[in-house]
């Protein structure tokens, strides 16, 4: 997965973002002010920067202007339209206003990474290998037949691994907002995935919550 630089001076929020990103498999580098962010960027190869705008020493906008080239998502408490426009016209890849849900952050991080990251987008766990480019799934080297919806569901689970997703959330992410159907559709598909990929112990049922792909 990707290496992400988190530049955020509020410790609780910083920790929260870091833990969530780490749980889906990203590597995180933590810095708490603008100057340190520039130092770290010079030393490390970073795929994505999560950049708070109000920072000590050097503010987010200025940091961004000096790191041109690295994909960046602005995080900020300022949610006025002009601030968003400023952030995006500067060339940021996305803009996230506090308070935000972690799911939203992860979705946006994934979206930006998908757009910008050039290396192959494979996922491997136990004997299962998922190739997102060709939309193929292999179990112990043998291809497994999957319906498009089953693959979508698997992709959502993989992208949000280690995070419990409610049935509604899964419906929304894999089937789309406009899908009108029972949440039991999700259960059925999950059962099929578990059987086809032998992932009974990986795709966990979270009590009263939903499912989680544990890695």
């Amino acid at each position, binding site marked *: 997965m990707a290496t992400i630089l988190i530049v955020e*001076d*509020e410790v*609780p*929020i910083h*920790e*929260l973002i870091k*833990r*969530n990103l780490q*749980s889906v498999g990203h590597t995180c580098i933590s810095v708490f*002010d603008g100057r340190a962010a520039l130092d770290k960027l010079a030393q490390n190869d970073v795929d994505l920067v999560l950049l*708070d705008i*109000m*920072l*000590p020493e050097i*503010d987010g906008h200025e940091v961004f202007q000096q790191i041109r080239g690295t994909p960046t998502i602005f995080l900020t*408490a*300022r949610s006025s339209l002009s601030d968003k426009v400023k952030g995006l016209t500067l060339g940021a890849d996305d803009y996230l206003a*506090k*308070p*935000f*849900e*972690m*799911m939203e952050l992860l979705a946006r991080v994934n979206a930006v990474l998908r757009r910008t990251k050039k290396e192959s987008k494979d996922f491997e766990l136990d004997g299962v290998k998922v190739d997102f480019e060709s939309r193929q799934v292999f179990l112990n080297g043998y291809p497994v037949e999957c319906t498009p919806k089953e693959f979508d569901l698997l992709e959502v689970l993989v992208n949000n691994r*280690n*995070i*419990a*997703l409610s049935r509604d959330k899964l419906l929304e992410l894999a089937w789309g907002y406009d899908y009108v159907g029972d949440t039991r559709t999700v259960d059925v598909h999950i059962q099929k995935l578990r059987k086809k990929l032998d992932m009974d112990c990986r795709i966990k049922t*979270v009590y009263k*919550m939903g499912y*989680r792909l*544990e890695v």
Partner: protein
Amino acid sequence: MKSRTFLLTFILFLLFYYSGILIASAVTLKSNLDSSKDRSLREHYFIVSSYAKDLNALEKRGASVDDVIGSLYRSYFDFYSKQKVILAISKEGQQLYTDLMAESAPFPRTPLISKTSDRLVSTEKFKGKEYIRVVGAMPAPYDTYVLAYYYDVSDIFSSWNKMTVMLLLSGILLCGLLAVCLLLVLHRVFRPLQQISAASRSIAQGQYENRIEVKGHDELAEMAGSFNHMAEEIQSQMLQLATIAEQKQQFVDNLAHELRTPLTAIYGYAEYIQKVVRTEEDKLFATHYIMSESRRLQNIAHRLLDMATYRGNKIELSNVHMGDLIRGVKQSVSMKAAEQQIQMIYECRFDTLLCDADLMHVLLVNLINNAMKACGSDGIIKLVAQLENEHKVISVQDNGKGMTEEHLAHITEAFYRVDSSRSRSGGGAGLGLTLCKQIAVNHEAELSFSSAPGKGTQAKLTFTSR
């Protein structure tokens, strides 16, 4: 207003001017006529007496009166007709020698005169000419004859007429001139009024910086001056209101930010526990943050409530012993000071202070807490209570990192943080100094700060009222 003033002035002028002309010409005419009448009377008297003398002389020479009177009359008539005077003679109401007057008159009959000494003066009009008529009997013994004297005054009337026409014509000309001048003057007089109304219109539309040019020292200039003063007042009040509104907006924005950050964290960690957490350690970690962030919200709520309370309530002042006050403060801060290895110095040079003990305690503890945040370890904080220019002054001095002028101006604003990132590494809700300021205001004291980066900060509380 302008046109009304113009019309009124104009009409009044016409009225007075023409009545003036009328009176003057009437008076002139009358005096001219009067003097002519006097002259006519005198001449009549002179003619009559010389006539009587001549008659007398001729009678003595033996001529008959009735014969002589005719020839005499003829010579008199000829002589006086050259002087625009016509003479007529009558006897017992009977006009005599009318043939002479044929070309100049059919004069009416000479009226009868009751008494011989009476003379009758009147103005008569014959054949389009004005005459002054004097009728009188000859002196005795010829008093049966009555001599009428007609003096032609047409010239006086015609010259009077001419003069009246001249005056009227010049009056019309003057009226025209007056109208033009009046308009110019009124325009000049009313211009400031127009300027004022234009200016007030623009002020009503929100352009508060408009002013009227003040010229001279008359009433209008005074009015313009007071208008400008009003505009200035309005502008400054509006500015004040705008500043207050801006501060309020700033406050709300800041409050929103202050609430949003802990809420993001609380929500995020709750979500984290619900969806991600698998170990007990993770759960403890998340709950720790949820609790600390909740406490932060609580802190803000308390402070806001405190501020609202202090603002609304009148405080009760009492004479508080400085020793007690400082002891209380010492107790509150000593633990933390020891923790951070900060040296506290207390100096007190007056005994009592008229204040609310609890509020003053809160204020001083707040100031000292701020000083501690600025100091870090090994700082020295000095609390000094002393008299300065007969005012009681309490100051809190630290040797911490200090701040720039720019920051000093804002530090008592709610949620203002010297660090632009608004980081809470220093702790606190960002309302401490706002609270201090409110308490100072309640005590009618002035809270001022002086600082330089790297040299520490001094907070000074000056009690102005005592």
